[in-house]
C-alpha cells in the first residue's frame, strides 16, 4: 500500500486502540463491554493488515501467542465464575470488596467505573479472548488468500 495509507495507519492505530479500551472499561456503566471493545480492537488489526500486508503483521502476531492470549482470556472468565462457588456459580463476590467494589446509587447517577464486582473483570477477559480470536481469524484468512510468493 502507498505511503499515505501506511502513514495514516500508523497515526490512527493508537486512537483505535484507545477507543477500544474505552469501550471495554466502560462496559458496565454505559454502552460497550467485552465483545464490543474487543471487536474495535481487532479492527485495528484489520487496518494494519490492509496497510502493511499480512506477512509483516503475522511476523509480529505469531499464532501461538494469539492462541495463548485467547485461552488465557477464556480461562480467566471461567475462573471468575468459579470464584463465587462458595455460594453459586457466577455469584458476584467482589461487590463491597476493594476490587471494583463500590455499590452505585439506585437510578440515574454520575458515572463510577469502580463498581460492578466481577463484571468489569469478565469484560476484560472476554475482550482478551475476542481480540486474539478475531486477529487470528483475520490473519488466517489474509494469509490463505495470498497466492504463493505474493504479499497482498
Amino acid at each position: 500500500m502507498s505511503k499515505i495509507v501506511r502513514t495514516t495507519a500508523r497515526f490512527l492505530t493508537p486512537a483505535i486502540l484507545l477507543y477500544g479500551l474505552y469501550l471495554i472499561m466502560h462496559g458496565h456503566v454505559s454502552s460497550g463491554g467485552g465483545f464490543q471493545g474487543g471487536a474495535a480492537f481487532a479492527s485495528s488489526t484489520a487496518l494494519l493488515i490492509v496497510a502493511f500486508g499480512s506477512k509483516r503483521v503475522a511476523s509480529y502476531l505469531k499464532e501461538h501467542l494469539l492462541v495463548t492470549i485467547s485461552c488465557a482470556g477464556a480461562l480467566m472468565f471461567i475462573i471468575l465464575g468459579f470464584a463465587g462457588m462458595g455460594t453459586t456459580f457466577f455469584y458476584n463476590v467482589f461487590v463491597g470488596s476493594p476490587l471494583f467494589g463500590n455499590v452505585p446509587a439506585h437510578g440515574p447517577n454520575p458515572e463510577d467505573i469502580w463498581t460492578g464486582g466481577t463484571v468489569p473483570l469478565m469484560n476484560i477477559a472476554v475482550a482478551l479472548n475476542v481480540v486474539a480470536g478475531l486477529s487470528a481469524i483475520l490473519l488466517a484468512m489474509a494469509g490463505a488468500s495470498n497466492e504463493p510468493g505474493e504479499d497482498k
Partner: protein
Amino acid sequence: MSDILINMPFFAVAALICVSLYIMMTQRNLIKVVMGITLFQSAVNLFLVALGYRTGGVAPAYTSGPVHLMVLPVPQAMTLTSIVIGVSTTALMLSLIIHIYRHTGSTDAEKSRRVKG
C-alpha cells in the same frame, strides 16, 4: 396510517427475511449464499431490537441519564449474543469456502457438489 409507521421495523424484518430466503435458495455462488445467511442474521437481530422499543423510551443506561422511560435492555443483550454467534459462523463458513475453492477451483455450488445419493 400511524399503525403502519409504528410497525415499520417489523415490515422491514419481513422484507429482509424474504430477500434472504430468495438469495439462499436461488444463488449458485457460495459466497452469495453466505451473504444471504448474513442478511437473515441481520433481520433477526433487527427483530429482537425492535421488539424492545417502548414509545418515548431512551437508551437503558443509568449513567448521567435523564429520569425517563427506558427501552427493554434484555433484547439488546440477546442481539449482542446473536451478533457474536453470527461473526463466528460467518468466519467458519468463509474459511470452508476457501478450502472448497482450493480443491475445486471455483465457488460455484453446482460444480462442487460431488456427492449424490
